[in-house]
């Protein structure tokens, strides 16, 4: 049973995106069609998957019991006051006379770029951790409120992709944290200017 692939070999980027589950339905179908016929590509994909195994396990290896305890502590220390203290929630809305850096808002400390920053090079957004296993949604908006870029990350820093070229002008960025225990925390909008 000899088979020859009738489609082009997928690129390294496509294979990596396939392994991470980041392909669109159509692209995934194309890659699968190729894998079904091309033993060599399939082998390279499975070898890469095997190599990644221990790294994935390490990344996912947080000790379950510890996570449960930390989640409970977080729920008590961070989320509960946010949820039940209207005064604190109101204070989380930025005002010009509040100190801007570092700026603690609803459990997340924003580090960079500082509020009102003027930027002319690579933009790297940084903030302090909101808790173990938290994921963060970073949103960049223009002056009209239109979303220019958003991404979800597990890290506490992310660079604006090189292909994202922002036109000169004012922008706002904010971070929403999804905590391990199902709670959330939100940091208000910070302004920066691209020149």
């Amino acid at each position: 049973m000899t088979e020859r692939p009738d489609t082009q070999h997928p690129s390294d980027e496509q294979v990596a995106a396939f392994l991470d589950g980041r392909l669109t339905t159509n692209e995934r179908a194309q890659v699968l069609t190729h894998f079904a016929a091309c033993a060599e590509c399939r082998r390279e994909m499975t070898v890469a998957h095997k190599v990644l195994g221990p790294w994935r396990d390490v990344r996912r290896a947080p000790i379950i019991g510890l996570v449960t305890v930390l989640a409970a502590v977080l729920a008590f220390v961070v989320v509960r006051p946010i949820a039940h203290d209207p005064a604190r929630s109101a204070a989380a809305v930025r005002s010009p006379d509040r100190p801007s850096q570092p700026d603690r808002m609803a459990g997340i400390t924003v580090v960079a770029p500082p509020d009102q920053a003027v930027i002319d090079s690579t933009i790297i957004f940084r903030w302090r951790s909101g808790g173990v296993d938290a994921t963060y949604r970073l949103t960049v908006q223009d002056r009209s409120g239109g979303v220019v870029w958003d991404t979800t990350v597990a890290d506490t820093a992310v660079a604006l992709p090189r292909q994202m070229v922002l036109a000169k002008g004012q922008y706002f960025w904010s971070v929403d944290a999804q905590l391990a225990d199902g709670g959330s925390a939100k940091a208000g909008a910070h302004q920066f200017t691209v020149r």
Partner: protein
Amino acid sequence: MTVDAVLQNPARDHRMADRRGPVPLELAQLLNGAPPADRDRAWTALVATHSRLLMAVARTLGAEHDSVMDAYTYVLERLREDDYRRLRAYVADNRASFTTWLVVVARGLCVDHYRRQYGRTPRGNGTASGTRVERTFRRRLFELAPTMVDLASLVDEQGLAADESVQVAQRNQALALVLETLDPADRVLLKLRFEDDLPAREIATILQMPSAFHVYRRLASLYTSLRRHLVARGVESSAP
């Protein structure tokens, strides 16, 4: 329902199209046009962070220390050439995590290095040996048989008479035709299981199925479907 049908929904595509992975800081610093000294520092940091991973990839083609180090060095040289062309390709695409991308690219470079050294495709790590093919084929026959079949009763093709060989060829051709009608995800599932001999748990993660049990259930459903199609084509037994 196919494996892919489980994953198909328009919202998923929208999310996939929007989803960009974070670029590691060292990589962002390396490619952002900083002064050479800063870029060297960023490169050193990037290599330090991912050395263990790259060594693990280099070991996929052999365990001998010198050849592993050769492959590792080769990968670093290729990543650095043409002003980090490959790394820029990652940033431009940026769908997968950097770790996943790096493993895929490094493995490709290691294979390339191996071919340059030895002039042939490396074997091992998923390349089926004769014995393994035989074992896999026997298992395939066993799985496709309607009920429990004594493995000892399976026929060794090496010792077949001429007419039996023709029957085996016809049966294999029928199987190939039936396999062609399957959804690509199902074909990959069967290939991973029977040709590449992967455990169900690993197949589940590769094909993004919820668990190994889903793999087994899908395989059972495929066996039933394949048997029905084979019977319709006049193949009623795994024996010639």
